[in-house]
């Protein structure tokens, strides 16, 4: 049903995870951590928030995996994360694990954040521009285009993640692309060849 080579692997791992096999679930984490994190990152923008959402999505998936029946693990996992992104927008909520009390009482201010100037400098202007255009989309369009163009999901899979009809997926992706394109075209250097290519 879904064009995923890893579906059979998933099924085996999911079966084991449902029986409480942490090792199997850890393999599922390894398999999906990068796409899931990047989905959240393109949705919420901040790496720390995205990591919190991914962590929380894995925790919830682990807790509820026994309730997973027919749906493919991947769309179910992304559905959990998508809901957490919407929660994040609604309430500005962060997800995280609070360590045990007796341990936290010993914790003193450790690790003070500083920006990473090198990374900032290297952040390619083009990347930043595209990222900002995606951030400017409304949430429904944003998640559709992220699942399509960041995660490479098929429309049917996106419909399953978002629990909306295929036609809605199609229209959100199209409108999102049109809007991003319009924003990008305001920067004359962004599509340098476009005009030349169609001059004749």
């Amino acid at each position, binding site marked *: 049903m879904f064009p995923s080579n890893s579906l059979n692997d998933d099924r085996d791992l999911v079966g084991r995870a449902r029986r409480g096999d942490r090792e199997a679930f850890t393999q599922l984490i390894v398999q999906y951590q990068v796409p899931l994190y990047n989905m959240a990152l393109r949705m919420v923008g901040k790496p720390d928030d995205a990591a919190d959402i991914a962590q929380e999505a894995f925790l919830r998936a682990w807790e509820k995996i026994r309730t997973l029946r027919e749906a493919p693990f991947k769309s179910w996992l992304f559905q959990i994360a998508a809901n957490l992104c919407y929660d994040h927008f609604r309430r500005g909520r*962060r997800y995280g694990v609070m360590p045990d009390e007796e*341990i936290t009482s010993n914790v003193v201010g450790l690790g003070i954040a500083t920006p990473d100037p090198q990374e900032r400098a290297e952040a390619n202007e083009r990347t930043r521009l595209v990222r900002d255009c995606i951030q400017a989309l409304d949430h429904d369009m944003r998640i559709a285009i992220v699942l399509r163009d960041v995660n490479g999901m098929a429309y049917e899979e996106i419909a399953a993640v978002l629990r909306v009809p295929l036609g809605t997926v199609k229209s959100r992706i199209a409108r999102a692309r049109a809007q991003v394109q319009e924003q990008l075209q305001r920067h004359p250097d962004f599509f340098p060849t476009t005009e030349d290519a169609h001059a004749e």
Partner: protein
Amino acid sequence: MPSEPRTPAEPTLEELSAYLDHELDSAAEARVADHVAGCDECRARLDGLRETAHAIRALPMETPPRRFTIPEQRRRGWRWAPAGWIGSAAVALLLIAVGIQNLHLPAGPTATSGSFSTNSGGLANAPATRSEKGAVPPLSAPSPFTQQFDAQSAGAATNAATVVDSSNSARRLVLDTDKTSYPANGRMRVTVQLIGSPSTSLQSADQGLTLTLVRNGQGVALRPVGVESFNGTPIFGGWYDLASFPLSPPLAGDYRLQATWLIPDGSGRVLQVSVPVRIAG
């Protein structure tokens, strides 16, 4: 006349976009292809959408700043953590669990190893790495010529320590700095070798490596940059500008530089090693 319809229907935005994704049924796909072939305007619209989609697909896939974990047992009562808290708490947990008393000793290099997977429940429940985004980045990566340094040639470095995994003698964590004492505005060169790592990744988050400069239980997370995987040994570190460290005053004093390696094989085993570092007044 461009306005004269060459095909029955001008494709909609949605059709053009879905056409790019090969998400139209074959009849609609053929119709759009046919139309676009004869209509400059729609071809330009299609090209614009295609370039936009490519621009989005060209966004880099970024590495998560920390490792994602699940608790040993199904969780009891998790609470929301305040913003900015999670990563540093996780590092602190590691430091405390592995024996923070070591950190107060101004003596020579120390090393510990242990498994957190069975009997320290609180720790196993916590994500075992922290956000690298909050850490101090190096000014530059360590020079590759340090790559062949290992425990046997420890004399070559002024300040080095090694710990051997008690369950796998081929696995060692080696930490060294170029000096033991630095002026407050000095630069410290740090090199960490993960000998016998099950992973060749040069992403410190993938390797489960954290570096911390600690004094009296307070410290600064250093962001280790991977430079080399020589004979399968990932090497991390960099040059760090001490003046840029957000250390609490007085800056001068005796610190320990500590490397913590949560071995990335799912075993929960941790190797930890530290060397003394003095910042002169």
